[in-house]
């Protein structure tokens, strides 16, 4: 049983959560322009990482909010928990993402800046650099609330 630290509710049993798959899978900029193979790869193809993996979780029995997690798939060690829309904290220095997972937008509003960031990055990559500073900020502050 994992103890997962929800950013809203604190430490809760794993059974209160639902797994949302790999995080940071950008929604295609122009979905109708994809061929079948590209579309299938967007929908179904995911990394199978051995080690640190960025994934989405939903606190379904509690606050019903989504968040991201860095988890070691070998040791189950949870390294970081950070908001939807924020970049991976261990790759914060890397180039800003061109998009975020679509779940950020259709999940409920969190009151943070995350949904609007997600919304802008879905519609256009040109807005990504302007939102990057704020996402980087939240990305660096998020790990403080993370579990060991």
């Amino acid at each position, binding site marked *: 049983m994992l103890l997962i630290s929800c950013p*809203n509710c604190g430490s809760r049993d794993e059974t209160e959560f639902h797994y949302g798959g790999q995080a940071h899978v950008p929604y295609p900029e122009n979905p109708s322009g994809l061929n079948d193979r590209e579309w299938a790869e967007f929908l179904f193809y995911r990394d199978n990482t051995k080690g640190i993996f960025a994934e989405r979780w939903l606190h379904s029995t509690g606050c019903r909010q989504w968040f991201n997690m860095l988890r070691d798939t070998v040791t189950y060690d949870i390294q970081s928990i950070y908001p939807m829309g924020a970049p991976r904290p261990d790759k914060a220095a890397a180039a800003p993402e061109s998009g975020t997972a679509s779940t950020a937008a259709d999940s409920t509003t969190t009151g943070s800046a995350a949904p609007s960031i997600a919304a802008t990055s879905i519609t256009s990559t040109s807005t990504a650099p302007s939102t990057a500073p704020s996402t980087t900020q939240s990305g660096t502050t998020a790990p403080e609330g993370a579990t060991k």
Partner: protein
Amino acid sequence: MANTTALTGINGLRDIRRSPASHLAEALETGSVPGKVVLKEGPFQTMAGVRVDPSSEEGARIASVTGGLPVRCGEVAGREGVSVLWLGPSEFLVVAAEEAHDSLGGDLIGSLTSALGDAPGQVVDLSANRTTYELSGPRARAVLEKGCALDLHPRKFKPGTALSTEVGNIPVTLWKTGEESFRLFPRASFADFLGRWLLDAMREYASPEVP
């Protein structure tokens, strides 16, 4: 509000309304151990699910109807006769007495709906969505601890706190109303299961304690 007197008893429907655990009434009575732990199904309540951004203008309008909105997980806000439980950063459960319902002469749902207006959010009448179990007594915490992973120790879980969690593996909103009293809100379809689960968990306290 509309002519509520015309709706008195909702054309007789109120009289035949049955609570989700009414069939367990006798079992709850016999399964309770007065002085140790007592389980009852509470009366009908008016409940409304509210989704609104609490920092927005419409959030402030809703808050003025309910007497405030809770700010963080566990908090319960409200005013005399109305409680607002925190379900999420922008999701709340408003709980009041049955008479507060618009069909019985009250105006809670209507005033919440008009407070929200056309703004983004929702007000949904959830009065029939959940039932209420009232669990009380010095062993009430021990009963809950058999199926709830939260830290229920009084140093952590204070009266006036409500948390959405799992009790007996089903989703429940657990509201600590007093030092030794809890209110559990399972969805109606889980009422039978949770009632029987709690009765089973209470059974050992009917026997003399083994030192």
